[in-house]
């Protein structure tokens, strides 16, 4: 029982990170119908940026996160700007473009920060809480709380604000949106910037739990992508549920199947997707091309 609960706690904390990655994927997808394959590498850049300001410039952790969100937000805007001429023209090229951007970001990270990564010490020094023999890291609690708050804020933004509503409108019918005076390019740029910012948040929060190096994106991306698929691509609540589910599933698979856990995780994932191809919260898919 103790092992079971401890495994759950471990799975949930990493699951929160996967959820954030999945939310970022979904924000771009629901607006543009585009899977941004550079997304996880943006998260990696965010983690590096955060670690640089936190470790080298000794900025407080929270401020370092904000700076890294700004940095990646700009990267998001650049990616969108480069891809914009292709919007509604060549969808495959856009996809390949995002893959190319991911590769470029990895190479840039190696150039800037070198091949050896860096370990980030936890910004919270207080020890773990102990409840009935289960130990919960205070940092994990913070990660889960930040994830929850940012998802709520994002949802409010999409539903209650004008730019958010515009993004929703573009997602539904970009031609009609253009007709009523919504600037589709600007709306897409905003989606990309928000997605990249959330990626940086995920990367920054993952830093002290994992190890920051140029391959961090690979580790987060596959699980984050799977989480978005499982929840229903494009759905924000789906991304959250999918992320937590993948995290917990992974954790339990590690316990019962040890060295074969990756195989088992993705077999279960595949089975779930076969039963429900649109994911748990599957909406109609956005397809612009």
């Amino acid at each position, binding site marked *: 029982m103790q092992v079971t609960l401890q495994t759950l706690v471990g799975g949930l904390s990493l699951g929160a990170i996967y959820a954030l990655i999945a939310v970022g994927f979904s924000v771009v997808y629901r607006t543009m119908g585009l899977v941004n394959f550079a997304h996880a590498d943006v998260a990696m850049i965010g983690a590096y940026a955060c670690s640089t300001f936190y470790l080298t410039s000794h900025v407080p952790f929270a401020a370092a996160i904000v700076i890294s969100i700004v940095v990646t937000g700009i990267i998001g805007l650049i990616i969108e700007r480069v891809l914009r001429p292709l919007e509604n023209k060549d969808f495959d090229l856009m996809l390949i473009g995002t893959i*190319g951007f991911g*590769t470029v970001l990895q190479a840039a990270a190696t150039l800037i920060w070198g091949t050896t990564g860096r*370990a980030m010490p936890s910004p919270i020094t207080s020890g773990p809480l*102990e409840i009935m023999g289960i130990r919960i890291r205070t940092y994990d609690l913070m990660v889960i709380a930040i994830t929850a708050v940012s998802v709520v804020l994002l949802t409010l933004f999409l539903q209650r604000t004008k730019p958010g509503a515009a993004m929703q409108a573009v997602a539904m019918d970009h031609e009609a949106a253009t007709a009523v005076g919504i600037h589709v390019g600007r709306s897409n740029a905003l989606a990309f910037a928000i997605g990249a910012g959330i990626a940086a948040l995920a990367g920054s929060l993952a830093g002290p*739990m994992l*190890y920051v*190096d140029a391959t961090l994106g690979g580790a987060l991306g596959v699980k984050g992508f799977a989480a978005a698929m499982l929840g229903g691509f494009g759905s924000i609540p789906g991304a959250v549920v999918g992320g937590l589910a993948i995290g917990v599933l992974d*954790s339990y698979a*590690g316990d019962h199947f040890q060295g074969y856990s*990756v195989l088992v995780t993705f077999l279960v994932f595949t089975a779930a997707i076969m039963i429900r191809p649109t994911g748990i919260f599957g909406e109609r898919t956005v397809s612009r091309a």
Partner: protein
Amino acid sequence: MRARTRGTLSVPAAALGVLLAASACSAPGDSSSDDAGSSGPIKIAVVDAQSGQLASLGDWEAKGAKLAVKEWNKKGGINGRKIKLTVFDDQGDPTTGTNIARKLDSGNYVAMIGTAESAVTVAMAPILKQAEIPNITSGQATALVDVKSPFLFLNGPTSTTYDSTLADYLVATKKFKKIAMISNNGSYGKGEHDAFTAALKKAGITPVTDQVVTTDQKDFSASLSRIRQSKPDAIFLGSEEVEAGLIVKQARDLGITAPFAGAAPQGTPVFIETAGAKNAENTIVSSPYLSNEISDASRAFATAYKAEYGKDAELHGAKAYDGTNIMLTALKNSGMATGKKLADEIRATKYQGLLGDFAYDETGVGIFKTTIGIIKDGKLSAAQ
């Protein structure tokens, strides 16, 4: 839509190719020159991961090799010829490695230093054997010996040496009875797992729990909870630097206080940094190169290393430095022999290195001893 894009797809494909070429691949060695025999610089390749997850290992090894070559070149090279070192990026990937092996053959490279990854070295071995290019690797898996290539040499001990020394220390010296194990299912972890299990069995001990994780696992709660329940005296750790560091960090958060014990990766700064110095305290390490303060030679090496790279030297750099020196000594002693003759000369070379006294046997192993160190105050030092 597909029909519409087919015409234009070659453009993005080409663009992507350019991007990949610009970012991921290192410059290939020039294959035109035909100077292996008599004149011009002597071409030696360093093959290691310079990108990807094992890049830090590759970086250390390349640094050690470069330092050795620089020192030789300063002294005038070999027989008046300079040594030219070219670094190839194998990305830690066996397939990329085999491609590079073919490149070395066509590029007339005399010898190869690397790789730090046993799996890549094993994959490259048959091609290098056919091309008769001697190779000194930093790998330590027993699989390297099983390849039985007369052109393959190790610059350090095998896992068997590391782990029998470790098991002996834990069981005979420390009198530990309850030993837990956690290792990954990668080529390094699997090798360590098997070597340590065999060594424990010889000492008459069965591990209290034997947990296997994957190489890219990030959360170890389940395995560590089971280890905690088994209340071990020590925990064997068969995993590379970063993952081992994460395991130790999470173990301490779960309230596990038993010391960890492992081999080469557990002596590195990356491990200590990832785990956190406080968490890594008392880790027992079996290593042929405990610190830069062990001998005059290691102090001199560490000073030169620091002056060159501004960083502290560590085991992998020292191993590659030894291996490169052995290679160059053999080249010099044989009067610039290549192929089979060079390999025989390496086997005959007795060399006093940073790791100990090298004397190669038929299997390509030249060092058969490690010492036990303990991490104290964030630094590895000899066990008392």
